[in-house]
């Protein structure tokens, strides 16, 4: 595994107990350190299984030659505790992730588990809460917070234990648009500041577009990995596997259907605007 890889999957196969069909068939991919990778695919395509395999919540099928490496360490039953120190997951439902009675207690939970001295713990809790913009809520009860605020607390709890990789497992899908924006903005700021690797599992095209690299999963197999621009231009593939296509691509398709030919090299929203304006002037 090259030094600059955060996660590497080699021939990973996974079958849930009591089922015959493998959820992941032969999955191979790498995630570069310090990059943002999005994992897209319809419900049931195996996305969440991948996130649970990365931090050892699940282990690949025993009788397969599956190999998962996280930051140079193979994920095995013996290593999972080391790995979990480095990989934090923000789950989908903000209400299922709270353990503390107050925001501060909740964020401190992971540190208490690790026996961090009290003085240091108080300092860390305050630091991470201010990093997600929630310090003023340190004494609040979680029940009084919005979904977006709750997810920010969940992120603070993860930051407190200083992970290297953060996985967003559909963590914005239950939020309203402003909550979603807040969470994504904080993640991208933290990524720069702390040199984190981000893996986001999402149906949201805008969220996937923030990535450096997009992995497309269909029925337990990776069918593509490329930059967001390239992936989102493959509209027929996306449609076929039931995924959304970005607005600009939809519009180009419809314009072409209606006799307004848009040249192949026009791909982004701005290019399309420019092209249409020129076309209009010529008329």
């Amino acid at each position, binding site marked *: 595994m090259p030094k600059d890889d955060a996660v590497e999957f080699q021939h990973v196969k996974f079958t849930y107990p009591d089922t015959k069909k493998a959820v992941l068939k032969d999955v191979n991919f790498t995630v570069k350190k310090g990059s943002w990778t999005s994992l897209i695919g319809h419900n049931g395509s195996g996305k969440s299984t991948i996130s649970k395999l990365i931090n050892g919540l699940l282990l690949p099928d025993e009788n397969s030659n599956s190999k998962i490496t996280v930051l140079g360490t193979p994920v095995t039953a013996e290593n999972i505790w080391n790995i979990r120190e480095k990989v934090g997951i923000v789950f989908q439902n903000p209400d299922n992730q709270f353990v503390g009675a107050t925001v501060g207690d909740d964020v401190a939970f992971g540190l208490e588990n690790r026996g961090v001295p009290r003085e240091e713990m108080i300092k860390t809790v305050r630091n991470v809460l201010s990093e997600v913009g929630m310090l003023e809520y340190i004494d609040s009860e979680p029940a009084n917070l919005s*979904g977006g605020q709750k997810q920010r607390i969940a992120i603070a709890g993860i930051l407190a234990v200083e992970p290297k990789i953060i996985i967003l497992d559909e963590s914005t899908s239950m939020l*309203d*648009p*402003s909550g979603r924006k807040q969470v994504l903005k904080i993640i991208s700021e933290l990524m720069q500041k702390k040199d984190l690797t981000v893996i986001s599992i999402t*149906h949201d095209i805008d969220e996937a577009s923030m990535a450096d690299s997009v992995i497309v999963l269909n029925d337990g197999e990776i069918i593509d990995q490329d930059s967001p621009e390239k992936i989102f231009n493959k509209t027929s593939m996306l449609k076929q596997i039931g995924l959304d296509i970005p607005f600009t691509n939809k*519009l180009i398709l*419809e314009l072409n259907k209606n006799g*307004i030919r848009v040249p192949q090299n026009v791909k982004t929203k701005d290019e399309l605007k420019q092209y249409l304006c020129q076309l*209009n002037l010529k*008329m």
Partner: protein
Amino acid sequence: MEKKGLDNVSFELLDNSFIALIGHTGSGKSTLMQHFNALLKPSSGTIDIAGYHITSQTGNKNLKKLRKEVGLVFQFPESQLFENTVLDDVKFGPKNFGMSDKEAEAKAKKWLEQVGLSTDVISKSPFELSGGQMRRVAIAGVMVNEPQILCLDEPGAGLDPRAREEMMQIFVNYQKAGHTVILVTHNMDDVAKYADDVLVMEHGKLIKHDKPQKVFENEEWLKKHYLDEPTSSLFASSLKGFRFKENPLTIKELVDGIKENVQGGV
């Protein structure tokens, strides 16, 4: 401290229409929705719905028919599944409203099929299903009562795009079959695509009640209330030199408008 969840809200909605209820989190959308079948009752004022007249004095007796005729699907309704099998869960409503076991079963099977679930899931525990399937079971559990008015709070949230689209189509068909559908949503493209009529809530007040075309007509007003425009109209307003007869709210309207501009030559 007392806080008004709803503040002097008045409106009338037409039968058999598709209504969108929009506004920010905490604007009073859910509070309003819970008044539709008297889960909450107004402190003052009256509500006429499905033949009922609800006031602050309305008791909890005799509301069964109202609860049947006004079906509410809350956000993430799959968290409210409780029976041992999918079939039992969906049968629960009709049986509770007085149907025989046999009739209830037939209805339940019909609606499970309508929401796109295959027959092999009906004997499973709802908790063995995927999130998307659980959502469908929960929605079938309300639609099985065939309410006159179906009110749904973000029914597509967290589903993949194809499943969302399928869900929306089910509700459109239900409306077309002669029912009223009220959709609570943050998605302005859905408002533009599906709604005949829009209610906009803010701080417990109804700040606008109009057709989508009118609601999205004034950019300044939308900005002031932190409401998004549909993607198509946003794109249209960024096209310099273009004239649109009507603000295009959907991709179809946008394409037609662009066509008129570049081909019309007037």
